[in-house]
Every structure is written in C-alpha cells, then in structure tokens.
C-alpha cells in the first residue's frame, strides 16, 4: 500500500531538495513526486507518494521543515488523482487505425505520428494509465514517459454527486 501526501510549501530556494533528500536520508521510499505552484502567490504544492510504513514519520518530519506549511494525507477513495503519460508504440501503417481505435477507448490523444510509430498522450487516474498501458503495450512500446502523480481531495459537496469517479 502507498500513501499520497499533499504538501504545501513556501516557494523558497532549495525547498524541493529539502523534502526529497530528507526522505532519502531517513529511508522513506518516494514512489512519485510532482511539484508546481498553486493559486496563492509564493506557495507550491508537492504531491508525494510514499510507502505505507513510513507515512506517519514522513508527515512529522515534513512538518519539521520550516518551509513546509501544510501536509495532508489524501485518502485514495476520497481524492482525485492524475498522472500524465506519453507513450510511443510501434504501429505500421497497416495497423495504425486499430491502434488508434484502442487508444480512443481510453480517451488518449494522438500527439505524434511517425513512419512506424504513433505517440499518445493520456492524462487520467493512475490505474487507468496502467490499464491503458497493458492494452496498448501489445503493439510494442518504443518509448514511455510519465509525470509524477498530482492529487487533490474531493470537494465534500461534489463528492456525493460525482459518486466514485476515479
């Protein structure tokens, strides 16, 4: 099991290094990390995915960092999680149509077409990315890149409406 932590930090030089290397030095395995500014000026959010064992200590150690303002753990059942993936698969002109049809089912966008390959972009829940990859992988993955995970707690009101949307 893993845990997703949403960490609000001050945009100060070295803050990402502090977070990442504190985790490394204390032996907390980071599975994924994504960082970017938020709507409030001077603040950024780091989304961290860490292993189960460590979560309480990670949270407390993160709080000890002076530039960390807030740490919240996001319950996977109660949060919106996204990753972006770019994947290039072999697709000779003869099967290109078929490959693209498969991708379309997942809502992946074709962003590049070469002589023997097609490149898709998919931004979705991490599980959907894995499912997509399992399928499209049959055609032969030539290259692949994934972003770190970003996540946000579900809005309490929207939750009942959206049900269990992933």
């Amino acid at each position: 099991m893993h845990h997703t932590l949403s960490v609000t930090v001050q945009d100060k030089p070295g803050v990402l290094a502090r977070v990442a290397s504190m985790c490394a030095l204390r032996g907390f395995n980071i599975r994924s990390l994504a960082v970017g500014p938020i709507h409030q000026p001077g603040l950024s959010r780091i989304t961290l995915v860490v292993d189960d064992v460590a979560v309480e200590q990670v949270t407390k150690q993160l709080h000890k960092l002076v530039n960390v303002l807030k740490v919240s753990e996001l319950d996977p059942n109660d949060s919106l999680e996204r990753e972006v993936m770019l994947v290039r698969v072999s697709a000779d002109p003869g099967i290109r149509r078929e490959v693209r049809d498969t991708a379309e089912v997942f809502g992946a966008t074709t962003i590049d077409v070469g002589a023997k390959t097609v490149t898709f972009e998919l931004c979705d829940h991490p599980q959907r990315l894995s499912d997509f990859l399992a399928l499209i992988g049959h055609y032969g993955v030539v290259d692949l890149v994934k972003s770190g995970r970003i996540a946000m707690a579900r809005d309490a009101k929207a939750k009942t409406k959206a049900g269990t949307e992933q």
Partner: protein
Amino acid sequence: MPKMSGAAVLIKSLEYEGVEVAFGVPGGAILPAYDPLLDSPIRHVLARHEQGAGHMAEGYAHATGRVGVVIVTSGPGATNIMTPLQNALMDSVPIVAITGQVALSSMGNDAFQEAPTTGMAMHCTKHTFLVTDANEICDVVHQAFHLASTGRKGPVLIDIPKDLLVTEIEWHEPGPVDLPGYKPSRAGHSRQIERAIDLIMEASQPVLYVGGGIIAAGASEELLQFAEALDVPVTTTLMARGAFPDAHRLAMGMPGMHGTYTAVTAMQEADLLIALGTRFDDRVTGNPATFAPGAKVIHVDIDPAEIGKVRNPEVPIVGDVRVVLEQLVSALGVRLGDESLPDRSHWLETIAGWQAKYPLSYQQEPDGPVKAQYVIEQLLEATGGDCIVVSGVGQHQMWASQFWSFSKPRTWINSGGLGTMGFAVPAAIGAKVGMPDELVVAVDGDGSFQMTFQEMVTASTEKVPIKVVLINNGGHGMVRQWQTLFYGRRYSATDLSGDSPNYAALAEACGWVGMMVETPDDVGPALRKMLSTNDRPVLLEIRTDPDEMVWPMVPAGGSCSDIALGPEDL
C-alpha cells in the same frame, strides 16, 4: 537614513539580538564582517580551528541557555563547522552559524573557497538561510535567532555571499518573525493531560524518564515538584544529568548502556514510563523491542516527530515540557482533592533495595594504578560539586556522568547524541566565556583531547582560565573496552602511547600550567593545586589504568534486562 554596509548591518543585527560574544575564525569571504566587529561591543573569541569555534558556541549555549554564535568563512571554514552543527542538532543546542560565501555571481562556478554550504548543512541544522539580498540580512538574522531558541532548540545557519556584505544599504529594525510553517506548540492538549493523570493514578510502578528537554525548557523546578508530588523515582539521561538532583531520595541516576542497575532495571520493571523531553535513544533503550516491556508510556516532547518514532505512547503530549508539567501538576492537584495516590511504598522499597545491592562501584588499590572513577570522586570532593563539568567522549565521559553528583541544571556539558571526541576543551572555553564566575572543569580523555587541543592556545590568549583534568589511559579506552569484550582482546588501533605527547609540557607551551600525577595518593593534592590556580588555565594529566572498564553495560542492541555488572555477566 545614512547607508551602511551589509556587513555593518549584520553586526548591528547581532547586537540587536543581544549577542555579547561570537566565536570564530575570519577569512576571505567573511572578511567584510570582521571590520565592523572591531567597533562593536560584541566580544570576538578567535578560535584556532572552526570546529573549536563551533563547540565553543555550543558550550556557551549549554552553560548560559542563550544562543551561541559562530562566525566563519566560506569553503573550508564552512566545512569545518559541520561537526558542531550536527552535534548541536543531535543535542538540541541553540546556535547560529554565520558563514561567508563567495559572491552571488560566482556561486556555482567552483570559485575559490566555494563550498555548497547550505546544501551540506541542510540536514545538520534546524534550518539554513542563503541570503540573496542585502536588505534581508537583519530579518534573516532575527528569524535565525527565533528558530534556534524556540521550539526544539537547535543550530541555524546563515550563508551570506561576500558581495552582499559590501553592498551599501539602510539599517531597518527586523519586522515580526514571518515563518508561517513554524509554530511550535507550548501547552499540551488538555484531554491528553487528563489521560496522563488517569495512567498516573493507576500505575503501581511508575518511573520518570527524563531527558535533556527538561534542561532546555528550564523545567527542573517543575520536575522536582511533580516528582515529589507523585513520589515517583527519576532517571536522568546523559543529556539530562543535573536536571534532577542526584542526592535526592527519588534519584536513580542515568539509564541506558552504562546506566545504573537501578535505573535500567526500574524501567524494565515499570508499568508506566513518564517520558519527559527525551527521545528513546538507542543508547537508552538497547533493543527497543525488549525495552520496558510492561510499561505504558506517557511521552511529552516539544517535537511531534519524536513521539511515536521509536515507541508508540499510550498518551502523546506535544508541548513545552515546562508548561506541560505545570498543567500536570495542577490537574493532579485537582484530582488529588477526591482521590488519593495508590500506595507505592513497595515499589520505592524495591528500588531502594536495588540501590543498596547494586551501587556503582570500582576498586581503587592504594598502590595500584589510578582509577578514573577515583579521580572523579576526588574532584567532586575537592570542588564540593560546585562547578560546571564538561567532558569529551569515551569511558571518562561515562565515569564523569556516573560518579559526579549533579545538583543543578546546566552544570554538565557533553556531546551526547553525536558522541563527538574533541568536544570538551572548546566547549569548556565557551562555557567559561559565558559564565566567567563559575569554575569550569573539563574531564577529558587523551584521545578526545588530541582532536582539538590547539584550543588551549585560545584559552590562554583570550584569558579563559578553564581547568582540564586529562584522564590519560593511554588509548581509545572505550573502543579498547569493546575490543576486550567482543574482539577477543585483539587491540587494533586503540593504543595512543600514553607518554607521548608530554601533556604537561604541551600545556606549558600553550601558556597553561601543566601537571602530571600517576599515583592515587597524588590525585587529591594535585586537584587542589589545580583548583587554587586561577590566573591561568591548568591542565592536570592523570595516568590511569588502561584496563579499567565501564560498568554496568547493556551491550549495543541487547536487552536492558540483560544488564551486565561485570565481564562475567556478558
């Protein structure tokens, strides 16, 4: 307003924070700051090595409770203070380190004497600042002092590029501290206080397990009141020696690897540990899985990350331990209005029985080699215990902690968490600078002493008349002890050729009084002579038994229930 240099602003900022002394070594990048220092009321103590300057700042902070300041240059100056920074982090000592840095425009270019100072110090400080605008200097200094001296105290580093020190700016008073991510709690949660009292009222074999947090928080009075109100025995960790008077009927001495039989066993047998400002260090717990197996735990600490790190407490209380103790005492007062404490006389009798049966002990033969423990006892007698004891790291440190009888806080200064050899001489200098009217005696080992003895020169030139009692057992005694016990007496690299250097001559060469004795009878008179010499620092070398070992002992990672009173128990 007239303009002044960033360097002048820096020094004025230190004055604004109430700094009276700074320890340091100058150099290229920090040079501009040393000029306004000449006109400042701040005393500068010129150390002979930056590590020494850092430990001096620590010794000063330990002894006075105020923030110690160390100023060094970039590159090698900065790398040389990493040991004191980590030492201060482990022992929660409030110091502010100011490092010069190469000019902003040169940073990252491998410029002369450039080192990645904030990167190196990132994990051995509470926080680091890299100043990138001269106008920030006074606010950064203000924040650094705030961080160092509040919450869980610790080291803070400010790295200042040289060009900012020569930039002309206007002085302004620092604004209010703006650290939205830093809000240490003071009071404990009232529900947890009540739950703690519940456990205390139920416990039949409670122990107060007290750490350095009590000293940092200035909570000794409150601790005494609390312990007496409850009639609970107290053990003080290596960092907490002096937090509770050793002569008190409830005092059990030190716990852990070289703790007293009584303290170690009482924790193993306890049904409740009241852990105050302490962190369940492995030197205290041995194997944590077998530590205090039957005890529920109330853990009070100002650092939430310490709670549950090693041991999950039944009652976690985050707060300043002094405030929490006040809360506990008043909650207890209310509760004792209609309830009474359980009868714990049996527990106290059991403890008294252990104390009588298994006291700390050693054998001093009248014609045999001097035992270090005997030296400590003689020193205690000669001083009446009225002094600040500073120590190095090794057997002598354990013996000093074991055989001294502490009566008040801030009279025991040592390197606990990091175990830094070389700490004693510079830390003693810092302590004496901060407390010039107190007698300051460093009990040092020959190995530890040789790591920083150049600071003897600092002591004499700066007229800081400390005393050093050098326990010369001719080697790295503590390591040798492990080789004796666990490596079949194969002594690898632990012999320090006991007669070289000639310590007394070395001391004399540094402007000290140097003396040496090697028989038990000479120890007392030599100590008294040392104590009556106050115009200069004094070093008294005492040749001691190289084979003597520290007991009791809980082997590293072993169970505290298997505490050994001597080699036959291992």
